[in-house]
């Protein structure tokens, strides 16, 4: 059973998690620079990481939460590395990091 104090702790963290997610989603939606969109994606992932850890702590499943966070971090780093490589490939073709330049590619 989750106590009232634990719910309050979760709410405190949830407040900042929502703020981080808003910042990340705004960055992804508004930027034209593909590298900065990746930074926005990273900020959103950080918000989710914190949410998992806090949820695990509040419910008493810290070990499971840590295991999930480690998996999340591995997926995150692979996604970031591959996406950075794809962005560089696009940059070599178009000489621009602007995401509107992708429209000129074939396919």
């Amino acid at each position, binding site marked *: 059973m989750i106590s009232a104090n634990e719910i309050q702790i979760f709410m*405190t963290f949830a407040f900042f998690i929502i703020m981080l997610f808003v910042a990340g989603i705004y960055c992804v939606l508004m930027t034209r620079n593909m590298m900065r969109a990746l930074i926005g994606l990273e900020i959103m992932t*950080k918000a989710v990481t914190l949410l998992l850890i806090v949820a695990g702590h509040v419910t008493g499943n810290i070990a499971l939460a*840590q295991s999930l966070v480690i998996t999340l971090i591995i997926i995150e780093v692979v996604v970031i590395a591959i996406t950075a490589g794809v962005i560089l490939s696009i*940059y070599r073709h178009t000489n621009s990091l602007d995401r509107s330049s992708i429209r000129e590619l074939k396919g």
Partner: protein
Amino acid sequence: MTINIIALIGMTLTALWAVMARSLLKATIGLAVSSAFLTILMFRLASPLAAVFELSVCTGLITAVFVSAISLTKPLSHAETIALSKNKFRRYWPLPVIMAVVGALLILAKMQFAVAIPQGVIEKDVRDVMWNLRQIDMYGQIILMLAGAFGVVILFRERNNDKR
């Protein structure tokens, strides 16, 4: 209690800076500092293994990937920088306002706050969970890391134009 709230505020502010910074390198540094604050919070929430992963991978490796990717692109000219910074200010000034509005709405929604974290109950060893309960995740991670390594080798490879 104070450390938790400082780390939470610091993480949010550095993330905001990462979004709003003019230079991509400064944005990357902001992201790394944000990860460091997240590491502190993870230690405070009794998750040391995840915190070490966050510190080494997100603060270290991802920052290195970003810096290498940025260094492989050409810097902007002075005129382009000025034009972009004007556009950037126009595009990003609503973000702090939106965050303030969302924050005010959340406070108005009568969220009850407390930051004094009680000692977490550790019901199982994390190694036991990882290697027994979430064994399939481990195989998935190994496959993903291999795929990532091959992807980086192929995508970051400099093309030799002379051979074409």
